[in-house]
């Protein structure tokens, strides 16, 4: 029962950063039709010392213990990290973070939060860039 190790159950039962932000700069949502999971991530990106960072983050939605724990752990880890670093995170990073041996059918659940997070910061970033270049 390696998959539901204590850390995962703890994050599932007591999710960190669960909820919504008053005024997020970046948001994304995904729906996984095979398991009916819904995940929304809201991010407040602010300028850091050298580059934009994740100043605050919240996730919400419904899903299995793996997707919820993955979101909880991930949001904890990326808080105050540069956006560029978030975009470079790999699936392996998530697997290592969870530290559980996932069965093939659960890989999707584990990766959903990273997918949503990267979609959020990537999508809005592109938009921002477009707006900026529009002004220029």
């Amino acid at each position, binding site marked *: 029962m390696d998959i*539901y190790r204590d850390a995962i159950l703890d994050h599932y039962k007591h999710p960190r950063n669960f909820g919504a932000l008053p005024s997020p700069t970046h948001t994304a949502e995904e729906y996984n*039709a095979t398991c009916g999971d819904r995940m929304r991530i809201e991010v407040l990106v602010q300028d850091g010392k050298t580059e934009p960072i994740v100043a605050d983050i919240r996730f919400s939605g419904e899903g299995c*213990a793996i997707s919820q724990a993955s979101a909880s752990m991930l949001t904890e880890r990326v808080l105050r990290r540069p956006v560029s670093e978030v975009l470079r995170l790999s699936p392996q990073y998530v697997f290592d973070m969870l530290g559980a041996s996932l069965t093939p059918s659960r890989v999707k659940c584990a990766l959903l939060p990273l997918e949503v997070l990267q979609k959020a910061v990537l999508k809005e970033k592109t938009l921002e860039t477009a707006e900026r270049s529009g002004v220029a």
Partner: protein
Amino acid sequence: MFDAAVIRKDFPMLSRPADGKGLVYLDSTATSLKPAAVLQAMDEYYTTYGANVFRGIYSISERATAAYEGARGDVARFIHARDTREVVFTRNTDESISLIYYAWALPALGRGDGVVTTMLEHHANFVPWLELRRVKGIDLMFWEPDETGLLPIDALETLVSKKTKLVALTAASNVLGTLPPIGEIVKRVKRINPGCIVLVDAAQAAPHMPLDVSAWGADIVAFSAHKMLGPTGIGVLWGRHEFLEGLPPFTFGGDMIKEVHRDRAVYQDVPHRFEAGTPYIAGAIGLGAAVRYLEHLGMEDVRRHEMDITAYALKKLQAVDGVTVYGPRDPKDRGGVVAFRLEGIHPHDVAQVLDDDRICVRVGFHCAQPLHECLHIGPTVRASFYIYTTEADIDALIQGLLRVQETFR
């Protein structure tokens, strides 16, 4: 009446305790386990007379042809078809329905024509009609179940009209277990519009209860071998002979042709018109063996056993705190399948923990997402039963669920 505990010995997968823990297989609605008799029949073909059918003028090919056509006869007898030619071998239920879509519905139906389907359907009998609406502009109407999953029969009076060309419905829901009264429904439909075609998805009915396509009075019935003890990869399309005879081929090539010239081809009569290329010979032979196995048990008794085990499962499940069961309340109104939710725990997590005890259940939408949306519920856990399911399997499930609750408490 057969004894499920004895029958289990016929199933290699049940008689092989891999790591001390026996398999608790509660996913027969997805696919059934196979008895040794089926595997042996297929093996015998491959090891002693594995020649192609129809063409060889030598004894093992003739034997293969006889076995392949014999299986067709077995199926025809099993479903009480009037004519063996009404049985077409396909890959599965989905392909049987898709065959009707391409060979009949797509060319024949169009704007102004009505199609009625139900919200109980598996995607195999739902998506083709969505697609037909998209490409041909037919009027698609949905027959909605009540909150217990039963289809109110009087709704047919408003759904079906002279414009209705097709009513496509399931004989047994793969989620709720609902058993629409097909014979009565066909009668009602034909009374309103005698020309309306009725297509029945019997994937979850053929394995579990006596089936009489002639008594039903429907035009098309589809089902798969692998849910009724047979191999994966072979299914059945039964069609009323006059109806099938009017359809063009769905696939082209060998065996479906009578003669071919530079300027024209003459197609075979049914059923071979729809069976282009070398068919799944061993699969048909396996299906024949499966049918004979079921006939030996007696389909009335198969149904009785499943009703008993379903009643037991419903009683036990409802006694577990936090379990919500969906579908008809009375086991007489449902097949051997129970969909449920465990309060506060995602179905995937339920199945994952159950798997530690080698308990196999299905979770998700079970290829019936519109039904889950119609009932306003998320994904469900589904336990389904068959001839080899015992009360001990149900008890193991209940114990497993308590352990799931313990894990996520």
